[in-house]
């Protein structure tokens, strides 16, 4: 009971922060959707990190580690620690600069301007919006699971998911980007503290980690594991993990900068200097949250009561909550549960991003802002927040797949495969709108292919041999594993899809006419000094002018 009360108290604080932000707001689109591009270093770092960490970071990671072991850290966390800050450094800074200079508010707005792409931008919007929905669903579903587990089944999943969705919708509706950023900052501090406290409390509760690990290494097969001939020792190494799968997971973090909500967050920084500490501290923030969760998820496999509960519910994402319940006093489990809720409720910025994209890329682009004015544009954005949240809730309550798999199969894979668009936009002058369209359509087609085969072939049980869908000369080309589809004996779909998407961008761009020289000159100024006299060109555009091309 105490745990439930603490979590409800946390939800009230979050709601208050969002409404407090409302009092600081101005009635402009740039203020509601981008907090007037005013976020300082501290809020920018924590809100960007908090936005990127969803229920996958705590619930999904520990659930997967429960099945797969410590390899999950290398699979998702340490690769993200290199790739995500690197993409923020290389591409996020350019997104910020393009947005600041040309007043863009969404990635599609940048694509449209950079490639002279009108309706092609609308196609990219549609694909991006469709891919963002599963990620929002992950948040809502995680909210329901978490509240249900924390309350000991007092709050059913449908009600928990509904309450979380309502709180998120309220502070996004009122506070816009400012409210979302402040709430994310508060949440990030909370769930970063979670890792440290959880590891100390649970370590004490299980009788010390050294003893537990030695027991796992020495123990004969545990009855609760179904009589596995390998016992639990395999969870402490990667002996059952395919190197091809491990490699392809390093491509997943490329999705981060291609996600519209991360891209839009890059536009909120007050100055470029705000990126410095974000880039440097990002890896450490990842370690602070992922290392305890993966380790504790692995250790949980040695607890027969957790095995029984997980087998009964079929929900691996409850592992961390069960560990807390078994090892922490009730009041502390409540505070730690609030930390989990903080990570779970990351769907706020995705809902806001979807709303920003709709109002900027569709409503404003097709004349709504010109006809109805900026006030109605903001109102439309708020109405969209309500609609998107209700839609995500309805889908979340009728889908039964595991959090990690939904997110990985569709959203992460799709956005990682859209990464070539970001690179071409930021660095490749010769890239064209047709190349961008081809790349986007390849990704959409690839995801439809994945969805079709995942549904057509039943999921094999965990640990069972994958079923072969296509084979050539006895070698499997395409298989259905318990985690999804795999190519060439272990590569995740993201690997071939990323290659195909990049090829489509390069080949089609080279075959089609490049953007106008004026457009290229605006985005990639010539090699004149930044301090040289400004040259005005016909049409009133300035040309200028960095000492280096960007």
């Amino acid at each position, binding site marked *: 009971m105490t745990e439930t009360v603490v979590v409800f108290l946390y939800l009230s604080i979050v709601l208050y922060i969002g409404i407090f932000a409302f009092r600081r707001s101005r009635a402009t689109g740039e203020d509601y959707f981008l907090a007037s591009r005013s976020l300082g270093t501290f809020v920018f770092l924590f809100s960007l990190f908090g936005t990127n960490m969803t229920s996958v970071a705590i619930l999904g990671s520990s659930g997967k580690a429960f099945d797969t072991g410590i390899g999950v850290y290398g699979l998702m966390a340490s690769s993200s620690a290199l790739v995500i800050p690197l993409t923020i450094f290389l591409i996020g800074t350019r997104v910020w600069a393009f947005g600041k200079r*040309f007043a863009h508010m969404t990635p599609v707005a940048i694509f449209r301007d950079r490639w002279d792409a009108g309706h092609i931008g609308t196609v990219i919007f549609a694909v991006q919006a469709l891919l963002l929905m599963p990620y929002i669903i992950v948040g809502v579903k995680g909210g329901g699971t978490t509240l249900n587990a924390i309350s000991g089944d007092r709050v059913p999943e449908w009600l928990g998911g509904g309450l979380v969705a309502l709180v998120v919708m309220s502070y996004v509706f009122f506070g816009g980007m400012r409210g979302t950023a402040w709430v994310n900052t508060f949440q990030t501090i909370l769930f970063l503290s979670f890792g440290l406290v959880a590891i100390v409390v649970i370590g004490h509760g299980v009788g010390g*980690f050294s003893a537990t690990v030695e027991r796992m290494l020495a123990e004969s097969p545990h009855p609760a594991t179904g009589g596995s001939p390998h016992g639990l020792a395999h969870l402490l190494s990667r002996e059952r993990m395919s190197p091809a799968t491990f490699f392809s997971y390093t491509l997943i973090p490329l999705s981060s900068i291609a996600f519209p909500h991360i891209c839009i967050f890059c536009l909120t920084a007050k100055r470029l200097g705000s990126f410095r500490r974000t880039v440097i501290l990002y*890896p450490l923030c990842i370690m602070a949250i992922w290392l305890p969760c993966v380790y504790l998820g692995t250790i949980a496999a040695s607890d027969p009561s957790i095995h029984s509960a997980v087998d009964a519910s079929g929900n691996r994402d409850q592992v961390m909550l069960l560990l807390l319940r078994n090892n922490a006093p009730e009041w502390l489990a409540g505070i730690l549960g609030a930390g989990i809720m903080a990570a779970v409720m990351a769907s706020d910025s995705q809902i806001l991003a979807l709303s920003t994209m709709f109002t900027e890329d569709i409503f404003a682009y097709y004349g709504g802002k010109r006809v109805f004015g900026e006030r109605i544009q903001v109102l439309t954005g708020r109405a969209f927040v309500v609609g998107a949240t209700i839609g995500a809730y309805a889908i979340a309550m009728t889908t039964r797949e595991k959090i990690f798999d939904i997110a990985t199969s569709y959203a992460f894979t799709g956005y990682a495969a859209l990464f070539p668009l970001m690179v071409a936009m930021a660095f490749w002058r010769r890239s064209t709108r047709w190349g961008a369209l081809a790349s986007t359509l390849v990704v959409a087609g690839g995801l439809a292919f994945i969805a079709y085969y995942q549904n057509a072939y039943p999921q094999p049980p965990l640990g069972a041999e994958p079923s072969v869908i296509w084979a050539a000369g006895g070698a499997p080309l395409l298989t259905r594993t318990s985690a999804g589809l795999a190519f060439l004996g272990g590569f995740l779909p993201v690997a071939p899809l990323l290659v195909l998407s990049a090829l489509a961008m390069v080949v089609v761009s080279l075959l089609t006419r490049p953007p106008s020289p004026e457009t290229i000159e605006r985005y990639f100024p010539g090699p004149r000094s930044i301090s040289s006299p400004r040259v005005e060109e016909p049409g009133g555009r300035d040309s200028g002018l960095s000492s280096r091309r960007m």
Partner: protein
Amino acid sequence: MNYNFRFAGESVPRPVPGSPDARTMKKFVLALLVIGLYAAHHDIWFWTAVRPLVFGFLPISLFYHASYTVAACLLMVALVKLAWPEDLSRWAEEDRRGPGGREGR
């Protein structure tokens, strides 16, 4: 082709700091570091290893990846110190023509 033959003992001119050659060299070294760190992620040498248990409870491959994360942080420090796109900031924030003080779309 430009062949530069030098006799033993003859001094090789160093790139002047801030010159295009020095910048290219710096970018090349940083790119090598990034590629090297990415390659180091695939630690096949610890694939099946559990022992030694670092601090008595951390399997060696998990400790390796935790250390890898710290190395990624240090690499980011180097990138920020040595390759920060300062002129990008000036370019983005300089006065512009067009509506709202920004270059129009």
